[in-house]
């Protein structure tokens, strides 16, 4: 039998996605910035830039720097705060008819819980809990590199909302499966991974760091093998759906993450390079399914034959 119209839909934490492809937080603004370049209604979901309780100014410039097949960024969670997000940004996201996943970040367990409560409103379909931002002091990654903190934070957010809770993991840890299990045991409905890898680059002529923040998060194709490996490990360690991200530029890259164990795939840095990258990934996945007679993309999740390597 030849598959002509593969089923690309997936279920993640109770959300029905028409396809597995979504934006990676922080690379897609609040969606509308990319409206001139692609039809957002075709996406699997839209994941917003991180929202914090109070407005954040962000880090001093320069904030981005290209590296081989990648980039460093240290934006510093610049955002207008939860109230402005709810009033000004969220309504515009409803027009596209796809699930809206709001990424939240905070300085304390209480702040995360308060945000989760505030955002448990119509128009928000799930929360992605950013326990892994490498570019801000005293928050973000501080939670994501510690099992107990990850557990306490996840528990508090789950208690504060009825929305599906997706915990976004940091790759800057010794064993990501330990953190993944802590989030699972605390009640997470899904996990997303990986956030950026902490990195740094130096202008040797001037003997200065390239970034105003000195260090930043590395993303892009350069990090993809790390993402594939971590998704593969976490998929075997937990019983939760995973959203994979890390240097996906095209359908082949997305399929790599899916075969490693990701149910959903987020596209990040590629949006900067090719504003229609997510469309190309979706079309490419469909073409792959037709070529390989795959009736349902969900059948490929974690289907890498590692035992036959």
């Amino acid at each position, binding site marked *: 039998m030849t598959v002509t119209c593969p089923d690309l839909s997936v279920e993640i934490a109770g959300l029905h996605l028409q396809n597995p492809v979504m934006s990676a937080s*922080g*690379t*897609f*603004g609040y969606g509308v*910035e*990319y409206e*001139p*370049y692609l039809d957002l209604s075709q996406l699997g979901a839209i994941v917003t*830039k991180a929202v914090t309780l109070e*407005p954040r*100014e*962000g880090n*001093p*410039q*320069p*904030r*981005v*720097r*290209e590296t*081989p*097949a*990648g*980039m460093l*960024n240290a*934006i510093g969670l*610049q955002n207008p705060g939860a109230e402005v997000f709810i009033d000004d940004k969220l309504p515009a996201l409803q027009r596209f008819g796809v699930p809206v996943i709001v990424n939240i970040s905070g300085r304390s367990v209480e702040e995360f819980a308060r945000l989760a409560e505030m955002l448990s409103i119509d128009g928000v379909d799930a929360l992605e809990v950013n326990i892994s931002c490498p570019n801000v002091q005293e928050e973000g990654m501080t939670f994501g590199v510690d099992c107990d903190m990850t557990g306490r934070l996840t528990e508090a957010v789950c208690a504060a909302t009825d929305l599906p809770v997706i915990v976004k993991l940091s790759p800057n840890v010794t064993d990501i499966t330990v953190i993944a299990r802590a989030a699972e045991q605390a009640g997470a409905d899904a996990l997303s991974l990986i956030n950026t890898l902490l990195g740094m680059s130096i202008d040797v002529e001037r003997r*200065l760091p390239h970034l*105003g923040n000195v260090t930043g998060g590395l993303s*892009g*194709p350069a990090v993809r093998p790390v993402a594939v490996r971590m998704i593969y490990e976490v998929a075997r360690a937990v019983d939760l759906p995973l959203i994979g991200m890390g240097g996906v*530029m095209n359908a082949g890259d997305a399929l790599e993450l899916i075969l490693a164990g990701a149910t959903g795939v987020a596209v990040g*840095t590629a*949006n*900067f*390079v*090719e*504003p229609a990258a997510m469309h190309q990934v979706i079309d490419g996945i469909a073409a792959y399914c037709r070529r390989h007679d795959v009736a349902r993309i969900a059948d490929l999740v974690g289907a890498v034959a590692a035992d036959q390597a």
Partner: protein
Amino acid sequence: MPRATAILRHREEVVSGHYLLTLDCPEVAKAAQPGQFVHLRIGDGTDPLLRRPFSILLAQPETGEVQILVRTVGRGTGIIATHDEGVAYDLLGPLGNGWEAPAGGEDVVLVAGGIGVAPLIFFADGLRLMERQPYVRSIFGAANQEALVCWTEFAARCDEFTAVTEDGSAGETGLVTDVLAPELERDRPQHVYACGPDGMLAAVARICRDAGVPCYVSMEQWMGCGVGACLGCAVPASAGGYVRVCADGPVFDATEIDWERMKRR
């Protein structure tokens, strides 16, 4: 959609390390306003990965041609410098706000530093086409004579032109600001428009503020997306927080920028 394919028609090394590219791109040529930029992808590989922003030096709707000035500073611009005629670029643009033209008939001063001359050539060109042409004085500064790139194109579009070089190899010796301050005193213009390195823009902004002359600067910053989403190109705003060079600029009223917080570049 602000997106097009541009074919490289001509590449000229105007001075060492500076290339004037003439692109065939009717969509951008038609839509471009002085001060806007294009975000150009170099090849379809992953290294270099990000697009590179370039100010538009001239856009000619009649011929469909767009010119940009490229200085080779790194890997991406180094690759562009090797491209032959016929190469196709995928580009986003025209992007950004551009300069708002004055009402007409005013006295204006344009201040360019190095490669920052590019958008001012386009702006000066537009001023000459106005029904009530402003009187345009321009000051162009660079390290040395060679770095006064495309100065003839700039000078030809202005009523008065002063070159300034740090080493004195052409024009006055010193910095553009050494010429600007007395120039504002001699004959106070209604507006100043500037593009160049951040240090120069900060000094021009200060001089204009002290002289009470409105000043509009076009800024440059490393960019990610170019469309306002990633917040990578943010610069400090005097109102607090940051503004995006790509989407809120690249042209700003100089009083909108917090020059004290502008670090380094």
